[in-house]
């Protein structure tokens, strides 16, 4: 009995070796290149973090694998929005010799402490995190197709206070990094433009019950609300505004610019406006291709951040193909060579720090249950982020 087991083991082992040999033989023609996607993929922020994987997958699916020099793989890594896990992930990617590019992190609180490790590893980091400080640390490996927080705030203020001439503005944010930074920059600009800030409040992230803070807002006779949070919370807040019989002009940064806002908010979000990157995204043929491909594959509309991962993946693949070798420094150089890149976001090029220079902020509003493009924000020249 024992011998038979042993004999079987030999056979199984032999088969395994054979399979392994075949497998490596098959891959031998095409070397493996891994692109990691790091973001919160479990826990309360999973809804936002998981979008990045989808965006990257969609971009990769657009290539014919046979025509590529490398065999690309996407490696999703859950950083749980936790700085310490983000650091572990960075070290993991640093030592993994197949990893040639990273998309993420989504949270600035994860990206900033991990960025020195990525820099030391010379890994191209396509961050989705939007804190301006991230690219101001002097690293040369960070790129961002997303707009930074300061830019969202300046664009929003130019529209709400500069163009619509709102004089009594309330600001409510969600106590996150983008929430607080965008709100503060907006507040400072609005004060310069002689608008009165009648309320400046933070609500816990993921808060469902907005009625207490909205009740005190109702008291303040505001003529506009700058609401800085993600679409699900905006939908909740605007529904409860409606229940309280309130009617205010609502504007927010790109976290709310998503079809999901309309799905969740229904008629309550009619008239809400958002600032988002780019001129009329819907008019770009490349963008509509992305949107329809997303809907076809995942059976829902893309949420705001997936398009950035999609764009980043395209740029990464192009850079790696151009470099033609698994050499991180060469790929970093190639990123500069394959941009400007014309894609779903329009023309993307990076400035010296690595931030996109596609700094056109569009105003989009919900009209008849659909996002529509209104205009670009007129930002005074002297306020453009340096």
């Amino acid at each position: 009995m024992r011998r038979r087991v042993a004999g079987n083991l030999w056979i199984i082992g032999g088969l395994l070796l054979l399979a392994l040999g075949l497998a490596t033989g098959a891959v031998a023609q095409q070397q493996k290149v891994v692109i990691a996607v790091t973001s919160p993929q479990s826990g309360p922020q999973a809804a936002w973090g998981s979008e990045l994987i989808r965006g990257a997958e969609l971009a990769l699916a657009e290539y014919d694998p046979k025509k590529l020099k490398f065999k690309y793989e996407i490696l999703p890594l859950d950083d749980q929005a936790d700085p310490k896990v983000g650091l572990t992930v960075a070290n993991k990617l640093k030592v993994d010799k197949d990893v040639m590019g990273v998309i993420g992190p989504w949270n600035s609180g994860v990206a900033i402490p991990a960025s020195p490790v990525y820099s030391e590893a010379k890994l191209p980091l396509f961050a989705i995190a939007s804190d301006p400080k991230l690219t101001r640390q002097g690293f040369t490996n960070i790129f961002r197709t997303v707009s930074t927080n300061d830019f969202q705030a300046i664009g929003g203020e130019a529209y709400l206070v500069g163009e619509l001439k709102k004089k009594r503005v309330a600001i409510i944010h969600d106590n996150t990094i983008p929430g607080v930074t965008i709100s503060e920059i907006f507040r400072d600009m609005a004060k310069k433009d002689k608008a009165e800030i009648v309320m400046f409040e933070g609500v816990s992230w993921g808060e469902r019950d907005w009625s207490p803070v909205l009740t005190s807002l109702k008291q303040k006779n505001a003529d506009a609300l700058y609401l800085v949070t993600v679409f699900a919370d905006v939908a909740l807040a605007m529904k409860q505004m409606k229940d309280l019989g309130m009617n205010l002009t609502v504007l927010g940064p790109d976290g709310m610019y998503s079809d999901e806002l309309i799905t969740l908010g229904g008629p309550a979000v009619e008239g809400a406006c958002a600032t988002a990157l780019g001129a009329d995204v819907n008019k770009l043929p490349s963008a509509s291709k992305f949107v329809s491909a997303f809907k076809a594959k995942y059976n829902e509309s893309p949420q705001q951040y997936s398009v950035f991962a999609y764009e980043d993946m395209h740029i990464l693949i192009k850079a790696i193909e151009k470099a033609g070798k698994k050499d991180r420094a060469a790929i970093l150089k190639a990123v500069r060579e394959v941009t400007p890149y014309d894609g779903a976001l329009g023309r993307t090029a990076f400035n010296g720090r690595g931030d996109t220079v596609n700094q056109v902020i569009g105003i989009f509003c919900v009209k008849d249950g659909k996002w529509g493009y209104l205009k670009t924000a007129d930002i005074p020249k002297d306020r453009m982020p340096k």
Partner: protein
Amino acid sequence: MGGFGRSGSRRSRPKLTERLRRASRFIGRSRHLQLLALLAALVVFGLQADEYLLDIGVLVGIYSILGLGLSIVIGQAGLLDLGYIAFYAIGAYWTALLSTYFGVPFWLLLPSAAALAAVFGVLLGYPTLRLRGDYLAIVTLGFGEIIRITLNNWRQLTNGPMGIMGIGHPRLALPGLGAFDFGLNVQAYYFLILVLDVVAVFVVARLARSRVGLAWKAIREDELAAGAMGVNVRRAKLLAFALGAAFAGAAGSFFAGRVGFVSPESFTFVESVLVVCIVVIGGSASIAGVILGAVVFIGLPELLREVARFRMLAFGLGMVVLMLTRPQGLLGQEWMGEPEKSRTEPEPEPALVPDL
């Protein structure tokens, strides 16, 4: 290794295994030798492993200290603390603030963070002395959340959710070699946390056998009887809170120095729960159990990365299965925490008795 090495090892195999067996038998005889062997293995790991594995090692080290500290509170004194991570936060922010505002060196901040956390431990412990069991659990939980939210809201001092960047890394002045900055050197942190862990293990082991350790045990088994026997229950409980908090404060200080950045995101309720799990799953009052718990809870999720999507699902399931199969924890012999007999004690809660 090549062909030679292979045939060579095959020839000497019986001899080698025999030698190993003899050696292990020798080591097995002495507890001290066991520990030395383990330490040697950890040092070899530190010298050989890549940065990813070392980083996990550092995290296991941090959570071992947290677990050991909490095992004083839960395992030895039997007080269920669900807001333990607040002390870790206090240590981390103390380090971050004094380092960035005044440039105080890390080596001064590490012990002072522990002391400050101990003070907070007493501050929390004092008003809650009268509370028992699950009431204490919810109050400590609330305390943890209050600390985290305050750190998040106090924009002027703590920079709010953006956290504090640019915390000074530890530096060592080596005679003749100049200053060595830990910077991003994971290996250096690994050895530093290893030293801190050895100290922590030593302290906890000594405490368990000390007079106060016996007092804690007495309180855990029966608070009433302990008081009647002349144990100063108040002082013993406060001491447990203070010492447990000090461990967390030191761990927090190390964390701040290693990462160079702190933000409130690192100190959520989930973190407190994680440390409780490490302690209970390992075996509340067993030092080796707590460290094993840290290895399981920090290392396993990393291993499980391969099954990314099902990771947390498997993890939750694993916790249930583990408790069902080993309710006393992996290495716990007897059950620690609140004693079984508390059921038969006169019921404090009137429970569902309707009161009109």
